[in-house]
């Protein structure tokens, strides 16, 4: 059974009103998104900034309440949980955020930072606590004496290790990784990603891995979800999706990523324009103003997710009888 499931998850933010009350409206940050995270697996979410990735993470963490749809954890809807259930959920879902310089409280010692979730949720004895902190530091590859230092004494990569140790202190089932390596040096990224993979294998963790770096997501994930302006445009098994992306947006994203071999040549698809404002998304398919393969129907009718060769794709190119043949074979 899936550890976590989102069904038709929607989050609307009220738009800023003008001085005379005009300009209201709603931002559809996340719009009818559904996904499932299996035990011990990683769900990767990719998309440009502003596509709703981080809002999704915050909904999963309970930092925001969904406007519509439901999140189910171990089969139970989060909205209907009682106090004990919510406590269990808090302990089972932890997070690692993007900026390792902002995610550690600057005036707390490392031992206190790592132990905070434990102290808050359980009442361990002092020696139990210090044993656990040492164990966690060891798990993420930091020496035991790090416990007595302050965050500013560490580099970005080390801080991210501390953040991971903290997230693991309650032995969670699901860890939300919101761009965990985007703020790190390229040389450190692989170390942290490999650490996360090792921890997953060792502890049977599930990850919700959010990033804009396709290579990292493809490396980490079992399943990938591609989002554009709050909607899922394509989802599928990671290997399969990165080998043969179907949606023009996914294809453009993958063509923008560096090839893994310098001699590899690919067709480059350059997207023009900016991501439109989610306050006023385009009609029909939200991607159609920037899509190199847009057809008249795209501006009118919103495509739904349909099964195309094992992926779910929301694109009119794969409608029956539409002239989309050949796109999938690039």
């Amino acid at each position: 059974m899936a550890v976590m499931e989102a069904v038709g998850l929607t989050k609307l933010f009220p738009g800023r009103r003008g001085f005379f009350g005009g300009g209201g409206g709603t931002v559809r940050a996340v719009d009818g998104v559904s996904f499932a995270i299996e035990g011990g697996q990683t769900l990767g979410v990719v998309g440009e900034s502003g596509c709703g990735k981080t809002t999704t993470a915050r909904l999963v963490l309970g930092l925001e309440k969904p406007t519509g749809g439901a999140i189910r954890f171990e089969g139970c809807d989060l909205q209907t949980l009682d106090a004990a259930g919510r406590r269990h959920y808090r302990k089972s879902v932890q997070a690692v955020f993007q900026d390792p310089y902002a995610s550690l409280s600057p005036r707390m010692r490392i031992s206190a930072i790592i132990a905070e979730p434990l102290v808050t949720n359980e009442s361990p004895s002092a020696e139990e606590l210090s044993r656990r902190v040492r164990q966690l530091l060891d798990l993420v590859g930091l020496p035991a004496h790090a416990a007595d230092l302050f965050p500013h004494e560490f580099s970005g990569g080390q801080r991210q290790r501390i953040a991971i140790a903290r997230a693991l202190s309650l032995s969670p089932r699901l860890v939300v990784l919101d761009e965990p390596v985007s703020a790190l040096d390229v040389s450190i990224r692989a170390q942290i990603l490999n650490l996360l993979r090792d921890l997953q294998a060792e502890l049977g963790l599930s990850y919700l891995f959010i990033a804009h770096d396709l290579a990292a997501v493809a490396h980490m994930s079992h399943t990938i979800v591609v989002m554009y302006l709050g909607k899922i445009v394509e989802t599928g098994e990671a290997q399969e999706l990165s080998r043969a992306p179907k949606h023009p947006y996914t294809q453009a994203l993958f063509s923008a990523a560096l090839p893994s071999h310098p001699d590899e040549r690919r067709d480059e698809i350059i997207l023009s324009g900016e991501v439109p404002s989610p306050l006023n998304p385009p009609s029909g398919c939200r991607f159609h103003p920037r899509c190199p393969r847009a057809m008249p129907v795209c501006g009118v009718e919103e495509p739904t997710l349909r099964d195309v060769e094992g992926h779910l794709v929301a694109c009119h190119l794969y409608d029956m009888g539409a002239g989309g043949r050949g796109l999938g074979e690039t």
Partner: protein
Amino acid sequence: MSTTTETSLLAAQLPSRFSFVRSRDFPLIPLLILGIIAFVAVFADLLAPHDPQVGSLAARFHPPFWLAGGSTDYLLGTDQLGRDVLSRLIFGARVSMVVGFTAVIFAGVVGTTLGIISGYLGGWVDQVIMRVVDAWLALPALSFAIFLAAIVGPSEMNIVIILGLVFWTRYARIVRGEVLSLKEREFVRLAIVAGCSKWTIMRRHILPNVVNSAIVLASLMLGVVIIAEASLSFLGVGVPPPKPAWGVMLSDGKQGLMVGYWWLTVFPGCCIMLMVLSSNLLGDWLRVKLDPQLRQL
């Protein structure tokens, strides 16, 4: 940082703990002045050559010792009741120090607490506290203080409470602003994810990060509070006579100024100025030193 050294901890290469004393912009003179005033205030009983509250009418209006008619018995002269000006200044330092520091701390505790609650909880709590602050700030500080003093009556204790009540709003404003940015920081979000309660987050994550701002503000407020105390005493609603406060001395000496008894006002005036100037300079230095924007945390 290279991959090999990433896991090895940075060696502590911080300069030794007290080396900042030698740095160029360290406010040595302001600190010395405040230190001397504090020392004098603490040991006033030992240092003062005469009783500050009892004079002899035979010794009225002695000028300072270097002027004709002055004597080394009364180094800075005597006032209209024959009380030794130097002794009164020494005991006045005690009043200024005690009132200044306690009022600043009192205002700081009230203002910081309300600022944190207002900023972190937001919503109607924030609205209520900030509207109260707005209304409070619309009252002219000194008139408000006189009004309060007139109600509760003058005493040292009451002055502290009055000044605290008049000046807490500045802390509340500044601390609230800081909290608004702090609560969007990721470590606060992670504390929520870890299951910390609102009060725990305010105490453990917000408070330690606004203390610096509060301290900087306190050092800058010290001058303002001392001036306010002197003004209240000057106007007769502050420290009640015969207790020697600098403001009271100014008030008592002001008629003497016209007929040439300048030492009655110039010396306490200089003391007030030196203390306020020192605390302001110290505050400026602290601001640079502790400002989270200027310092990498």
